[in-house]
């Protein structure tokens, strides 16, 4: 019985959450430091996972398996394939930055405000989310996955509803009502998705007789478990709906702008860069593995929806007046790309999609956190309230620009690699869709540059004239992200090497071959 590494990666933040919550109210900073240390320790563990993971080894590695609920054959089964390992690493990587960026977000409001903000709670919740997300990346038991997939809604709900921006243009009252609206919306959307998925999970149990992903997938592969076509399609839809809500896919996306708009920037990053990834990841792992036929059956519709997400999200981002909502719609557009890559069912597309999850996490984190710093300085989320920041705070503007360029996937930065892979992968099978999706990059340039121009350039607005540049803490947050963006942009090999085998596995699950080049085909 070797050391349960995967369990450790999840248990550590969980314990950390409890401990942080237990810190006495007076020792606020102690709680912060504790949370930071725990998240860093988790990062170390995640790196160990990456190192111990052998790309050419078995599909699922570092597996653990214990009986849990014998009556229903529910087992506590963990294991990571390349995709899971990378995403665990991404999560563990982003949390420290989120904690650090949210250092003061949960400080008690200045005297006179009635709202008391429990600092300990804030950081404890973040760690709790980390634990659950990591577990849902590691769980290879459908039921186990479902539990954490749902459970992470609770801390997220409190994070969104409980902590907003320090200053708000409409005053605290309006802010809190909008916040609770956003939080409830987030909860309801995801709960509905989750319930439908629960039905599908039970259905799967009825059909398959157990919850183990590996066993079911094997049985599907060697044909010992054959579902009726309709059954498979219904189950697939049940799962996919939940993931599409989480992902979020048009037209199930409307909760995201509210949630990201009202939550503080770090929490917004937590939502879009960490939690939502579970949705796309689960599409790749569960939908494709468990229901290959149904996935192929649903592909055309899903691709069209993804396409709509890309264009629609980008267009709405152009139309936004609120920085955070703009980033939210941009994310919707990017999730469209990810889903496109997954369901294009080519190795480029799926590798690209996985890579995209990582890169989108980093780039959005960079952009959103800098935006958060900007907002915390001026106390407004409206683009119109800024102007000429570049002159007073060049470093802030510079990092903001880099984040923006990453969002428009400029070659040389990480997102370009993944986006191009997705596009190539899609184009290889569905040229028309690939071409239309490419329009997304023009729109991306449009909303990013418009945002940058309106906030950073032009004559200096009086409100921002005194704006200080990035502080040390904030630089510590941003600089590593920027470095990562550039590094993964020019040398993504480390990630792709881990991802590729897993993608090949998935491709073989859905029994799809990459289309061959015309010329070779001709020869």
């Amino acid at each position, binding site marked *: 019985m070797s050391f349960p590494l995967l369990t450790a990666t999840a248990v550590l933040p969980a314990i950390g959450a409890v401990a942080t919550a237990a810190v006495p109210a007076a020792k606020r900073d102690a709680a912060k430091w504790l949370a930071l240390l725990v998240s860093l320790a988790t990062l170390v563990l995640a790196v160990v996972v990456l190192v111990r993971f052998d790309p050419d080894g078995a599909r699922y590695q570092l597996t653990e398996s214990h009986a849990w609920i014998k009556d229903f054959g529910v087992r506590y089964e963990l294991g990571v394939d390349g995709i899971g390992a990378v995403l665990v690493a991404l999560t563990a990587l982003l949390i420290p930055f989120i904690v650090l960026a949210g250092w003061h977000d949960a400080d008690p409001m200045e005297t006179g405000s009635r709202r008391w903000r429990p600092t300990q709670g804030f950081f404890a919740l973040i760690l709790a989310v980390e634990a659950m997300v990591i577990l849902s990346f590691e769980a290879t038991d459908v039921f186990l996955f479902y539990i954490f997939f749902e459970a992470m809604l609770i801390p997220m709900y409190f994070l969104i509803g409980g902590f907003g921006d320090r200053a708000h243009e409409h005053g605290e009252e309006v802010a809190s009502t909008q916040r609770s609206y956003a939080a409830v919306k987030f909860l309801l959307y995801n709960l509905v998705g989750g319930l439908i998925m629960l039905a599908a999970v039970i259905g799967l149990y009825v059909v398959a007789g157990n919850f183990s992903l590996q066993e079911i997938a094997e049985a599907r592969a060697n044909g010992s478990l054959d579902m009726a076509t309709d059954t498979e399609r219904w189950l697939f839809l049940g799962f996919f709906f939940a993931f599409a809500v989480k992902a979020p896919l048009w037209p199930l996306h409307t909760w995201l702008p509210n949630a990201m708009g009202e939550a503080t920037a770090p929490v917004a990053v937590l939502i879009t860069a960490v939690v939502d990834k579970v949705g796309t990841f689960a599409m790749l792992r569960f939908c494709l593995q468990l229901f290959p036929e149904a996935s192929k059956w649903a592909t055309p519709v899903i691709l069209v929806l993804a396409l709509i997400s890309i264009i629609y999200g980008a*267009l709405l981002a152009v*139309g936004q007046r609120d920085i955070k909502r703009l980033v939210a719609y941009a994310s919707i557009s990017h999730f469209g790309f990810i889903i496109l890559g997954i369901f294009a069912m080519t190795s*480029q597309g799926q590798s690209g999609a996985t890579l995209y999850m990582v890169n989108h996490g980093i780039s959005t984190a960079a952009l959103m956190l800098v935006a958060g710093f900007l907002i915390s300085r001026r106390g407004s989320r409206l683009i119109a309230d800024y102007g000429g920041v570049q002159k007073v705070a060049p470093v802030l503007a510079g990092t903001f620009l880099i984040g923006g360029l990453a969002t428009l996937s400029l070659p040389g930065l990480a997102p370009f690699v993944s986006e191009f892979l997705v596009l190539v992968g899609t184009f290889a099978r569905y040229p028309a869709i690939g071409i239309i999706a490419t329009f997304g990059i023009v729109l991306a340039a449009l909303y990013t540059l418009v945002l940058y121009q309106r906030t950073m350039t032009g004559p200096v607005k009086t409100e921002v004239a005194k704006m200080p540049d990035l502080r040390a803490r904030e630089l510590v947050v941003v600089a590593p992200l920027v470095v990562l963006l550039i590094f993964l942009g020019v040398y993504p090999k480390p990630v792709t090497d881990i991802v590729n085998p897993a993608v090949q596995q998935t491709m073989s699950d859905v029994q799809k071959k990459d289309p061959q080049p015309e010329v070779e085909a001709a020869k």
Partner: protein
Amino acid sequence: MENLIALLIAAPLLGAAVLLCGGRRLDAVGHWIGTVLAAVSFVIGVVLFADLLGRSADDRTLTQHLWSWIPVEGFKADVAFQLDQLSMTFVLLITGVGSLIHLYSVGYMEHDERRRRFFGYLNLFLAAMLLLVLADNYLLLYVGWEGVGLASYLLIGFWQHKPSAATAAKKAFLVNRVGDMGLSIAVMLMFTTFGTFAFAPLLGTQEEPGIAGDASEGTLTGIALLLLLAACGKSAQVPLQSWLGDAMEGPTPVSALIHAATMVTAGVYLIVRSGAIFNAAPDAQLVVTVVGAVTLLFGAIVGCAKDDIKKALAGSTMSQIGYMVLAAGLGPIGYVWAIMHLVTHGFFKAGLFLGAGSVMHGMNDEVDMRRYGGLRKYMPITFVTFGLGYLAIIGFPGLSGFFSKDKIIEAAFAKGGTEGWILGGAALLGAAITAYYMTRVMLMTFFGEKRWQPDADGHEPHPHESPRSMTIPMIVLAFGSVFAGAFFTIGDRFLNWLEPVTGDDHGHSPLSATTVTLATMVVLVVGVAIAYGQYGRRPVPVVAPRGSMLTRAARRDLLQDDFNHVVLVRGGEHLTRSLVYVDHTLVDGVVNGTAASVGGLSGRMRRVQNGFVRSYAVSMFGGAAILIAATLLMRAV
């Protein structure tokens, strides 16, 4: 030797990194760091050039493989470089002109407190441009392609506090992005067609052609047209030319380096580099030539109407690149001359821009030529260098422009058939107009009586010669613009140098070379004469006359911006606004509507529970009745 290639790029890249991350402590020396590193890159280029010359003509191709960039199943993109004669030419042009302009900027940007960042951006541009011309596959080329776009975005918008500059920068980037879209789709198409997008297997060499030819002509035409779209974006060809005029918002050295000498010619590089593909797609080639012809006239006409000296020069740049594209579209006949014109143009146009910059430098950044006049007395060096550049561009016999442009016109006629006549005619007409507007610029700026007045702040400009750091580059470039053409042409040096890459093909021209030359001379004289008649003999009005319809249209870039504004900008705004509305009311409304209806329904259901025992009793009784009925029915059936 190969390992030096990476250094070419590394040097300016290092410079960019140091200068941009260095912080204020580098403000004092930043500009020199930048200039030195650019020069270093130039030196390395020269060394490599020497090395290539030392080799036999057919193995003048160096390659360097750094690392595997995107390794994915069935998809292979490497960070690897290929240095052949074509790239070499560009390397020398870029680093050479680039270094000079760095030097020039030292003086020009002296009073700008953000000079360090300016040099950082310049170095970034050099690195990206070198990457563009050195990449050994289309995807890496794409990186450089967008990299130069970024650099140009940063440099056009360098004076960000000016909204016009910021807007111009954004416009340039967006229009380029449209072109880039073409390039990326082209790469995808290559990948799906050939399974690779690396130059070597795809394009091959003159001896053994690559697999590019194996694909169906339709596919190749598609790829070629997409590449052309990319080229149009980067090289400001119709219909994507609208950004170049606004790009003049940037500092003048930028206009000289990026928007005259190097970046805007990337499109030509792309087409010539992809010659193997274009040769196999004659339809696409025809389109290329048409685009070139249209643009060269378009640019020339715009150039005639502008009173802003830099915008006039921008128009001329557009038009000159039109020549190159036209030549490139002619196939192997024209490739060499396209590149040669590109190089010579690099010299004289950069020189002209630097001259313009020097003029503005002396005139408190006044750009309106109607407020110049008689400057030759005040800034003689500028006058001479600018004049030489002027003679070069209008194709004055013996100067570089004469050789390169003449060849292109010749080649255009040599295309043969009616399109040969049409293209050649267009080229000739272009030459005439070029002579006209350049003469106009020359006269309005340096001749006539002085027309400048106190500017808004009320202090009279005191035109003076620019400092040494600015004049030296101008002089060097003037030398280039005088002698380069002759040097290249005599003994077909340039032809022999490039021929292994581009291939060569002397079409059979319906007109003899001399006829063409004579014709060129004639139109040249005509153009100059008309211009002199208009601007030399009678004084130039300080306020621009209303002018003819064409003039007014030309002042507005032939209404292209208005078209964009109405169709794209307005339309886009409406689209996004309506979409935002839809998202809020429809997509969101459906959801909220369901929630509301559920709530209302449950509220109504709640009424049924009125708490009165008797109504519960009624329901029980009714239930019993129904049960009995059910049982009876069961019995009955």
